């Protein structure tokens, strides 16, 4: 059966037009992942379909198993990684929630798994479109989190992700996000890195504590209150902190090797002389940049800060990026059903006691609702007023 043989239109030697999900699959192949577990959920599914096709065509030398749930998808990569093989899975939305227990287990066991998550809303009511609440609900599981803005970044983040996760100073899993459909199913030109360069950039996994008959260990045995429990948790947090430096180093190496610079944990867009700015992540940052250009043409001193990493949270980077601003807005395409926006809350906490700048929070684009140019103009205007507070964008009156 040749169904779905994806035709990537080859532009030049290493360029192609492909969807975000295809780009991710190419990244997984280039990373020489040895074990994949797969379970379908829209809009992630085409990643694991593409990987299945690669395995079937001997393009990827990996063990591929079709598990019966996402809990099992993560349990299987937990186990395969622990046995010493670079492992991968992907999910979205309810699938990610179903994994929650295993996310903690994988991070707690210090396994450098990389997973892709295509951000999708949570029901009820059912909704398959773009929203980041699924991964925001996993922000405290010990996983690093990267929110990608382009298909190229989605591919590159798989390569950087394994390098960062497998660093001895980190040893934590990483999830890399794409916005549902906007990246996952939309084609863009993508440069495919050369395999030899990738191999140089990303050496083979050498898991020091992998399962070994000559050195039989218990992995995860219990600890009483005075056992090393608190110490292990603290150590995990230290590693999360250490990861900042590793991320800087790895993005630097990546830029030198592949000529694409992702500038670490955040990206600053036209921030040099800006007086106010919006903080956003994922593809909303692209629309935001477009509106920044428009406002700049009108003489406004405005910029945008794109959060690439949410974990570790770039608090120092944000503090320094806003130091010359008069006001800042924070856009969340997600909803905490108890408090203010996830990102707005983190930003306020990062600035608390260190900066007096007013922080205005915006909730927009839930369930895939478009966030339009007018909405951004609205948000920039409200941000500039510097009155703080939290605002919903483009919500209809419910009678």
């Amino acid at each position, binding site marked *: 059966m040749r169904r779905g043989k994806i035709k990537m239109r080859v532009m030049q030697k290493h360029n192609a037009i492909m969807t975000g999900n295809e780009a991710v699959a190419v990244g997984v192949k280039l990373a020489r992942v040895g074990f994949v577990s797969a379970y379908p959920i829209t809009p992630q599914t085409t990643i694991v379909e593409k990987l299945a096709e690669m395995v079937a065509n001997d393009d990827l030398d990996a063990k591929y198993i079709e598990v019966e749930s996402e809990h099992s998808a993560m349990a299987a990569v937990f186990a395969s990684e622990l046995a010493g093989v670079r492992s991968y899975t992907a999910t979205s939305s309810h699938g990610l929630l179903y994994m929650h227990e295993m996310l903690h287990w994988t991070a707690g066991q210090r396994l450098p798994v990389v997973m892709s998550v295509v951000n999708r809303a949570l029901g009820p009511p059912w909704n398959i479109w773009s929203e980041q609440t699924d991964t925001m609900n996993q922000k405290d599981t010990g996983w690093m989190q990267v929110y990608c803005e382009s298909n190229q970044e989605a591919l590159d983040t798989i390569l950087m992700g394994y390098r960062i996760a497998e660093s001895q100073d980190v040893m934590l899993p990483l999830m890399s996000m794409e916005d549902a459909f906007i990246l996952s199913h939309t084609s863009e030109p993508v440069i495919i890195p050369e395999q030899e360069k990738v191999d140089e950039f990303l050496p083979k996994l050498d898991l020091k504590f992998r399962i070994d*008959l000559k050195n039989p260990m218990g992995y995860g045995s219990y600890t009483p209150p005075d056992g090393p429990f608190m110490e292990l948790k603290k150590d995990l947090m230290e590693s999360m902190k250490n990861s900042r430096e590793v991320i800087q180093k790895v993005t630097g190496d990546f830029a030198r090797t592949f000529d694409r610079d992702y500038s670490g944990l955040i990206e600053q867009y036209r921030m040099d002389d800006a007086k106010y700015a919006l903080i956003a992540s994922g593809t909303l940052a692209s629309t935001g940049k477009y509106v920044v250009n428009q406002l700049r043409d009108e003489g406004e001193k405005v910029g945008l800060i794109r959060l690439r990493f949410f974990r570790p949270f770039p608090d120092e980077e944000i503090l320094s990026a806003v130091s010359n601003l008069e006001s800042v807005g924070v856009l969340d395409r997600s909803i905490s059903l108890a408090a203010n926006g996830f990102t707005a809350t983190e930003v306020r906490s990062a600035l608390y006691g260190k900066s007096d700048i007013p922080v205005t929070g915006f909730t927009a684009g839930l369930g895939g609702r478009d966030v339009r140019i007018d909405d951004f103009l609205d948000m920039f205007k409200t941000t500039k007023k510097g009155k703080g507070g939290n605002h919903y964008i483009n919500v209809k009156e419910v009678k």
Partner: protein
Amino acid sequence: MPFSIPEEELMEPGHTACHGCGATLAMRYVLKGMGEKTVVSVPAACWAVIPGAMPNRTLKVPMVYTPFAATGAVISGLRGSLDIQGKSDYNVVGFAGDGGTADIGLQSLSGAMERGHNVFYIMYDNEAYMNTGVQRSGSTPFGAETTTTPVGKERNFKKQQKKIVADLMIAQGVPYVATATIAYPEDLIRKIGNAKKISGPKFIQILAPCPTGWYYPPEKSVEVSRQAVQSGIFPLFEYINGSIKVTKPSKPISVREYVSGQKRFAHLDDNDIEKIQNTVNKRMRYLLSMEKEGIFVLPAQ
């Protein structure tokens, strides 16, 4: 032909299990059968506590602790990962309690078996959630009192029949399915030897009496597990690709004799006991007819 169990111990002394723990003997015998090229995965259960606190260990082989529902998926992941590294000669063994198998872990068990990985799944069946204090599981037999099926003014003992996971495994085409118990270690270890000859999923349900949860004196675990077999309550069988061999009780005893030694059944009246005896007789007849006629299920592979 004389057959004795291997002398090599892959389980060291010094564990923290209750006196008379059947599950502990089950692990010890299973490892004797498996040998040292073995990796064991254990979910939340008594066995997650038995080896003691970090960094202690009781097994001389690697042991992976996992969340409660994960055993089937974890052994799938271990198998795949070891195979791709050329370590196909390692035995991968999931070792889970009855709650972790019949209830919360059934989905991942069923998935793993259906996919046909070359793994062993050992269900040590102490017929309740013991680690959390003797709550009813799907594998608790009819008639048993547990802490969630207490006998007070109302006789709220478990009213449903035991869910027999070994039967489910046969029904879904697992090529090797057997039952065993700690009273017959030679039989148990021989079955593991036979299972090892099969490349594919293997499922063995081991009755592991629990003095703490069944309320009998700890020195009687072996006796109680022998009675379970002799009374027909827990028939021993070995199913390999469509043929089943049933061990007929050599010195049959009545259900009444079996239940009378355990306080979890103390409340049963004559009617209840007769009901159990009837079920036991019917099941034994059914198993023997299967032995004669063979079982047809769609083979997994």
